[in-house]
């Protein structure tokens, strides 16, 4: 018995001292991006010698024309590289205008992927232009107001400017960015074949400046700041969002000013602050002196999404905003512990000028279900305003709106002039007792040109000609 037990015990001992766990070998096919190449005059940015997509860097020379060809993939600025677009440059989206592979169809809407630094340095006299080459594909202003179903503004001819996680500064001044919201490629890991955001930033440590630009037409969000120190100043937003989408959607990791912007006919909120995404610092938007007209009508979801919104831990300031005929007014989510409330302890607001031509509008100046309270500094505060009361008196915009006025397709600036007449109730009612955040340094090339402080008049246009310059 004993004799037989010994070998068994040896076996047992051997087994007990069994090998430790072996490592797992994991082999992933490497993915090194190609080197960035410099751009020659008249180059197509997203192909070189027929390549599907291209990595670029360098300078797009003043006054020259370059192309994005719809049959090829995105143009990419690698991490560490810089692309400078000088004033007067035209970037045209070329490709078949009709047929199954037309510009804007699936897989034919290339964009600019920015993993490095992008400087778009337009000037007032010679802005940079990003638009579609074929005039027949453009939205004809003579046809406005036109049905959104057929309005080319929502066609998404190109993929916009997509900042990556490692991007450097993205500085865009005096540029026309049109027809945004092209479908991302199927291989896009995040949003395959879904409409891209017009301008997307993802690096909380980088600067994002959008000054004096015209943003015309996007299918979903026009600007989504999911990380970045931003200054979004003195821009004009038109035709933003087909049935969903905000003009500027500020998420976690983003801190900055949104001021002196003119918004016409967005489908959802003009500006929203929500701390989603888990980045630091917390979403913090200083929204002041904006003029927002006719927003919130094309969307199918009711209850909010009209003009300004704070929710889900978003914070910031909200002063001196002029909201004209917006489906819903300033919405601050709170009340009760169950819903994802805004960071109400860190939100201050006031001096909101509401105007509505219908009871359905005036009864939602303080949207139902939100905790926005009427401030004594508000004009037409509360939900009991008579429609048409306190006309802000724009230089050229019909208020009260004429009979049969359709809010959905009156989403264009056209010949309107939203400056205030001298006797406008908005004059002199602005609150100036706070400062801009100034998240980005002041610099004509590498920073914000001018961080306009809060204005004396409510809205984007000031009597002393500071503010929006369009």
């Amino acid at each position, binding site marked *: 018995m004993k004799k037989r037990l010994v070998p068994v015990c040896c076996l047992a001992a051997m087994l007990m001292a069994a090998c430790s766990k072996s490592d797992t070998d994991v082999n992933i096919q490497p993915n090194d991006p190609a080197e960035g190449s410099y751009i020659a005059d008249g180059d197509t940015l997203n192909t070189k010698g027929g390549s599907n997509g291209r990595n670029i860097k360098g300078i797009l020379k003043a006054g020259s024309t370059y192309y994005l060809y719809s049959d090829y993939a995105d143009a990419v600025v690698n991490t560490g590289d810089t692309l400078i677009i000088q004033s007067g440059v035209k970037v045209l989206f070329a490709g078949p205008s009709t047929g199954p592979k037309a510009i804007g169809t699936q897989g034919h809407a290339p964009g600019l992927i920015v993993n490095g630094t992008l400087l778009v340095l337009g000037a007032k006299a010679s802005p940079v232009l990003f638009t579609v080459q074929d005039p027949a594909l453009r939205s004809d202003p003579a046809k406005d107001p036109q049905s959104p179903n057929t309005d080319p503004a929502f066609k998404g001819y190109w993929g916009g400017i997509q900042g990556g996680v490692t991007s450097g500064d993205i500085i865009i001044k005096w540029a026309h960015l049109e027809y945004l919201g092209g479908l991302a490629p199927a291989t896009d890991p995040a949003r395959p074949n879904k409409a891209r955001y017009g301008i997307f930033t993802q690096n909380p440590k980088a600067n994002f400046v959008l000054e004096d630009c015209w943003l015309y037409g996007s299918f979903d969000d026009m600007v989504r700041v999911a990380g970045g120190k931003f200054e979004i100043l003195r821009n004009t937003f038109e035709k933003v969002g087909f*049935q969903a989408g905000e003009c500027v959607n500020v998420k976690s990791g983003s801190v900055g000013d949104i001021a002196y912007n003119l918004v016409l006919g967005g489908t959802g909120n003009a500006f929203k602050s929500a701390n989603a995404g888990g980045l630091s610092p917390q979403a913090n938007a200083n929204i002041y002196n904006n003029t927002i007209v006719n927003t919130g009508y094309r969307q199918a979801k009711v209850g909010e999404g009209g003009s300004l919104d704070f929710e889900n831990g978003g914070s910031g300031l909200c002063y001196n905003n002029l909201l004209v005929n917006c489906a819903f007014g300033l919405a601050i989510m709170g009340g009760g512990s169950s819903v994802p409330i805004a960071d109400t302890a860190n939100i201050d607001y006031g001096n909101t000028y509401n105007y509505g031509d219908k009871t359905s509008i005036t009864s939602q100046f303080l949207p139902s279900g939100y905790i926005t309270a009427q401030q004594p500094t508000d004009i037409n505060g509360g939900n009991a305003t008579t429609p048409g009361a306190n006309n802000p008196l724009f230089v050229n915009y019909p208020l009260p709106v004429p009979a049969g006025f359709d809010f959905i397709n009156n989403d264009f600036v056209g010949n309107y002039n939203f400056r205030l007449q001298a006797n406008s109730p908005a004059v002199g009612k602005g609150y100036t007792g706070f400062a801009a955040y100034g998240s980005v340094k002041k610099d004509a090339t590498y920073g914000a040109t001018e961080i306009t402080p809060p204005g004396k008049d409510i809205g984007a246009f000031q009597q002393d000609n500071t503010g929006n310059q369009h």
Partner: protein
Amino acid sequence: MKQRYLLYTSFLTLAVWGTPHAAFAQKVVLDTVNVSGRIDPVSEVHGRMLEKISVQLMHVISRQSIERNSDITVADMMQRVSGVSVLRNETGIPGRVVIRGMDPKYSYTAVNGMVIPSPDERNRYLSLDLFPAGIIDHLEVFKTLRPSMAGDAIGGRINIVTRQAPEHQELSIQTASGYSQFYLDNRYLAFDNGAVQTKSPYERYGPDYNATGNDFTKNNLRFATQHVDPDIQGNVSWGRRLFSRKLGVLVAAGLQALHTGSSGFLILQNNEPQLGNAPGITDFIKRNYYATSNRKHVYATLDYKFNDKHRLRFYQLYINKQDIETRDAVDTSLAEGRSGPGTGRIAIMQRARIARQSMEHLHLEGDHQLGSQLSLDWSGVYSVAQGNYPDRAELTANTGRILGADGVIQQTPVLLAPLERLWMHNTEKEGDIYANLHYKPSILPLLEITAGTLLQYRRRDNFYNNYVFNPAITSGNGQPFTGIRNAVWLNNNGPQNPQGTVNTAGTYSAKEDITAFYIQAGYQTGRVYMMAGLREEQTEQRVHSAVDPGIALGKEIGIHYRDWLPSFNLRYTLDSKQDVKLSWYRALSRPALYDITFFNMNYDDYNIAGNPFLQRSTADNFDLRYEVYNPGVLDALQLTAFYKRIEDPYEKTLLGAADTLYPIPANGLSYIPAATLTEQLRNYGTATNYGFEFSLVKQFGNIGINANYTFTSSHIDQNKKYKQRADPQDPTSGIITVTRMQQRPLQGQSKHLGSLGLSYHMPRYGWTGQLQGVYTGGRIDEVSGWYDLDNWQKAYTALDLSIEKTFGKHWRLFGKASNLLNAGTQIYLKGAVTGVPEQTDPGRLLIEKEVHGRGYLLGVQYRVL
């Protein structure tokens, strides 16, 4: 000595033939009687015999028990095993099992000793509800392994042993019909499942084809209520031995149509909680499920006995299951436009889904006696599992009820919302070879050495295709909803991506090869029987995805590792009735192929991503059991204690923006950061799991009791995310997300499990009644990446009553009423929140509730023996 031996043999014979009382009254001297032949292994007694003889810890569910309980699928019967609880789907049908508190991914299913691939891409092994009960001879649940068994069973190994050709001709025809209480109270919401196109336009016309509206059917998105037919079940089987009993044949076929449903609600939380991880509640969804499950199976087995030394067996099994499910839901937002009950943004949704799964399994095996000391047995298996999920779509309309300034609640127009239509299918092919050589050296006749190999080759192809439709604006803010027929979509009334979305990480082909070798030795000495051995498994996985390498990562993924799995089993016989068993084994658990791809699903600001760098888990498992068997009187008692130490368990984890998503250099960094909140499976240090199982079977004359109770306790420390202010004392400091460690039990582990069954058997009149109650204690239903926000399932008790009556020799009538206590599913979060509807438990937030009602079944069986 001889007499005693004879006595035991006689006892055994009589016991096995099922007479509950010993026929022995006086000592009789008999000549040597050889009792030979194969006993029809149907009874509970045989089941207990198998458990006793086995050196490993196992449970057996016998055919008799299956028939008595009128089980329909294997999943139904699993809940009666000690230490096992079942996971039910949304209409209450049990599918996967949790063995000893270990999630289903830690256990595997084999049929006649060979593993079966799964048609479901998220799970490596078959869901047990695919298995019809009619072809099962008995079910074995192994809680410890021996080296000859495949090693990925940290929880346990379920082996389905299918029926073999009977000794005498046997014919059985069975039909049953039933109804669910849910459909006595509700009508069934149906869509035209015949209209569903199996192939998407991409598959029909190629990658360059631009699909238009005409390429998509509409009738499968038109929903109407209707009366539902009763459930039907039918089985036929026939078997006999031919050619002087050398060739045995058994064929069986069956079909089943089952209708189930449930109603309840779901409370949606925001992807991120609020400060202090208070849940952010966004929606209240009232929803109903209507499901039809159609199953078919064909089974055939042949066995040929060349002589006493050589035998060949062949099995063929084909299973086909079609699940048709409608879900209708009304989603009221509690955040948008909500100024009180009865107000808020509303989404009306109707979802149509079909899941078709099939499996074809061919198995050839042979037993050969090569001399007095050497024997060989081998198996060759080929399986094909297919899953097809065509045209999954949810038709949605948006509206709202908003409180106006005049105090009146207005309903806004009902507008059409975007529609997504999804096609998925996968095929998994597996070929296995299994061979074992047994050697009994002449010097040590009580020693048996076995060595063998298992070669598994698995190939998987996965296809994913998605179309998105955007509604045109036709009036007012959008498009008034009139149903799918007259819906107008942008882009020529077609999808915005007319070529479909195919080239994502969801479309891939994968290969997995597992090569295993083992050696084991079993030795009997006096009262002790020992078995020890070592198994080596080498795993190689390759994934080839359709993703374009220019844009995203990982067109090719290759993973390779090797594991050494020793095991040791000991049985100490105290006397003829009592045993003590001791066991230690090492096992592993491999992630599913889906989990190791680079898939990425994006929700607003929240991603779910795959992880090719996921390590497999390994575990050391210790068991000690004391058992008593009293054959002839049908008593059995088992007391078991177990302890498991699991290394590198992998669990769902939440990553913050700066956390490493993949350790692959890119864009100038040495890793790829998550960039936004991302959910991913990740490995953790060590988890422990220990518990105690008690199981008892006792017969008192006509009354039988089976009872079991299991106590399980497991621990894992996991990193979770927590939301707080940067300086908790300062309300103006920014909100940040930090990491906190949380200790919790493993997902699916209930602290207490119990089952009690009472049976009453009147053999003279042919009546048998069985009342079975199963208690499943509270457990984590789903792990959350956020601290203290795990979803818990409330404890519930399922009570079933089965009755059968035999008429004469051939007829049997049976009936079953299941879920008598109307146990449903309730999922909750710990910690109450105010302002949320339908809350009944203080201190808890009920986030999901489903009630599926009772089920009734009545059937008749004709059997010729």
